């Protein structure tokens, strides 16, 4: 699975859900979406081990890039304005802010930030902080189940992504969104389409939902008051309550009765699962977005990927090596066998072939006797016919299938050259090689002497 697909995983106390998104031909599509119930863990080490095994079996198919979600109630979330848009500067400023609002020392916290909006040289930034232990616990749970997450998001941001995607976050005015889940209740205040506050409001009381509604109504009123100082006076449009099916009527009735804004309830089940919202965020993730995953997780993942890559490359290399060695061994064996077969066949052919060779030699020998073409008589005849007057042959050496060497003399050189020319025109001698013409004084007379070699065709094989 490549980085163009991503799985977001949400671990609830009693269930686990995940969504795998894939980018194909520029479109994002849901490759897999699953949910499984989990048994509640008793708390002892053995039970936790069994639970991890069951979870591992369920998540066996989850591979590639994985983003996990931190429960919202475990995170401190603040939306602030920074007079910069530089991501590095924003990170430094966020750390300073966390030092102010966090009850824990900042060195024990995992801090992340997300640029929600930018205007001129200022940025509206969501700061999220959680104890490093929370991240470590989440990571340990997932690793026990064989899942190595690369990114950690906050659950409520997944819901916000889904609400925006489904068109439930108005682009104008101030609106309140209340997400009521089994784990807890989160309040989001959205202004001009951008979240300005996120608060965890505790869990819904199963026995006294009306009391919870009263508490939330008070918190809402308080929140709206505090918002005015930082984000200006603006009457909220409505309160959207997003809840699971089976929410107590008393809770909604209490909210409607005690809140000063219109309350509209929506089932959470009408939205895609939270994991899809988180997966979409992960697929869009850039340096400006929130990620609480420690750097060593990424390093460990890179190391694992490298290890897997090396193992795969090693396996391919060894397989190719084995193939090459095997091919060499088989090829050598086949080559040797072919050679021995050919040698055996040749050995069988050698005796009859030798016989034919001998026969051929005998025929050649006989033909040598019978062929008068290059006989001594023929050569003498050819030479005599072309011999000009006044030129004397003083020596002749004839060698059949070799050459005829001539020596001669004349009063002048002209007949010699004429003799050479005449011989060069004959077809009997393939090559005529004059060896030289010399002048010699003899008995007061100048005599021209020559040497000549006439090549005869070699014996046919």
């Amino acid at each position, binding site marked *: 699975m490549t980085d163009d697909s991503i799985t977001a995983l949400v671990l609830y106390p009693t269930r686990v859900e995940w969504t795998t998104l894939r980018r194909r031909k520029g479109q994002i599509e849901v490759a897999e979406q699953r949910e499984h119930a989990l048994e509640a863990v008793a708390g002892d080490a053995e039970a936790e081990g069994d639970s991890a095994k069951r979870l591992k079996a369920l998540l066996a198919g989850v591979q590639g890039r994985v983003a996990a979600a931190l429960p919202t109630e475990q995170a401190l979330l603040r939306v602030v304005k920074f007079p910069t848009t530089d991501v590095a500067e924003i990170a430094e400023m966020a750390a300073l802010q966390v030092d102010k609002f966090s009850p824990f020392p900042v060195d024990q916290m995992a801090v992340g930030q997300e640029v929600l909006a930018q205007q001129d040289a200022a940025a509206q930034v969501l700061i999220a902080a959680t104890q490093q232990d929370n991240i470590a616990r989440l990571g340990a749970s997932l690793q026990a189940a064989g899942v190595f997450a690369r990114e950690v998001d906050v659950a409520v941001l997944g819901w916000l992504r889904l609400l925006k995607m489904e068109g439930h976050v108005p682009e104008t005015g101030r609106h309140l969104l209340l997400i009521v889940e089994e784990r807890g209740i989160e309040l989001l205040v959205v202004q001009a389409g951008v979240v300005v506050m996120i608060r965890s409001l505790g869990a819904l009381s199963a026995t006294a939902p009306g009391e919870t509604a009263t508490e939330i109504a008070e918190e809402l009123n308080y929140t709206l008051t505090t918002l005015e100082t930082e984000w200006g006076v603006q009457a909220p449009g409505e309160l959207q309550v997003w809840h699971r099916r089976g929410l107590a009527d008393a809770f909604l009735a209490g909210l409607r009765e005690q809140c000063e804004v219109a309350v509209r309830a929506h089932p959470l089940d009408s939205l895609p699962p939270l994991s899809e919202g988180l997966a979409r965020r992960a697929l869009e993730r850039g340096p400006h977005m929130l990620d609480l995953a420690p750097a060593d997780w990424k390093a460990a993942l890179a190391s694992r990927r490298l290890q897997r890559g090396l193992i795969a490359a090693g396996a391919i290399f060894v397989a190719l*090596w084995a193939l090459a060695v095997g091919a060499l061994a088989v090829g050598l064996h086949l080559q040797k066998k072919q*050679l021995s077969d050919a040698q055996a066949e040749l050995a069988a052919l050698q005796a009859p072939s030798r016989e034919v060779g001998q026969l051929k030699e005998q025929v050649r020998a006989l033909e040598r*006797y019978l062929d008068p073409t290059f006989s001594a008589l023929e050569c003498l005849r050819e030479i005599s016919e072309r011999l000009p007057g006044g030129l004397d042959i003083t020596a002749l050496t004839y*060698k059949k299938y070799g050459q005829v060497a001539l020596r001669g003399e004349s009063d002048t050189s002209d007949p010699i050259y004429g003799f050479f020319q005449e011989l060069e025109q004959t077809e009997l001698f393939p090559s005529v090689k004059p060896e030289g013409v010399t002048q010699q004084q003899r008995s007061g007379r100048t005599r021209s002497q020559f040497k000549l070699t006439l090549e005869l065709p070699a014996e046919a094989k």
Partner: protein
Amino acid sequence: MKLSARELILAAATGAVVLVGGAWYFGAPAVEAWSNARTNLRKTQAEKQLAERLIAQRPEWEERYATLRQRIPQYSATAPVTADMLRTVQRLADEHRVSISRIEPDKEKVIGDLSEVAIDCTWDADLDALIHFLYAVQSHPAILDIRQLTVSPAQGAAGRLKGNFTVFFAFSRSGASGTASAPTTP
């Protein structure tokens, strides 16, 4: 034991080097053997093709040999062929006024069932006699062939020539009875 990325890469590279090195060390002789086997195979196949081609030509050579063989004088296994041929050459020379001052036979050579005797002679004659002698040798019913001839002027007499020639005589010996049966020889 956890290995860092650098250590992993180094380990993998070392493994690859060892594997390739080992393969090279043990595989190089095999590659050479393969190469030699291929060369030998090509050579053997070429020899085989040559032998097959030669065998395929057998009927043609047999036919040619059969035709030529009819013209070869037949002698028994122990017949004194060399003496007979010396006599023949001497007679031909005498008939054409070629004087032979030395006549020397070589050893009988055997090629399959064909035998060959070379006779080396030193001669002395005029050009006309020499030409007639050569013609007589060439047209003689026995298979005679002059393979080597030297001609140079003889001292003392104008128009007189001298030199050497080597005449080869081909015949075949058949049977082991030792009786001569040379119907074609004069």
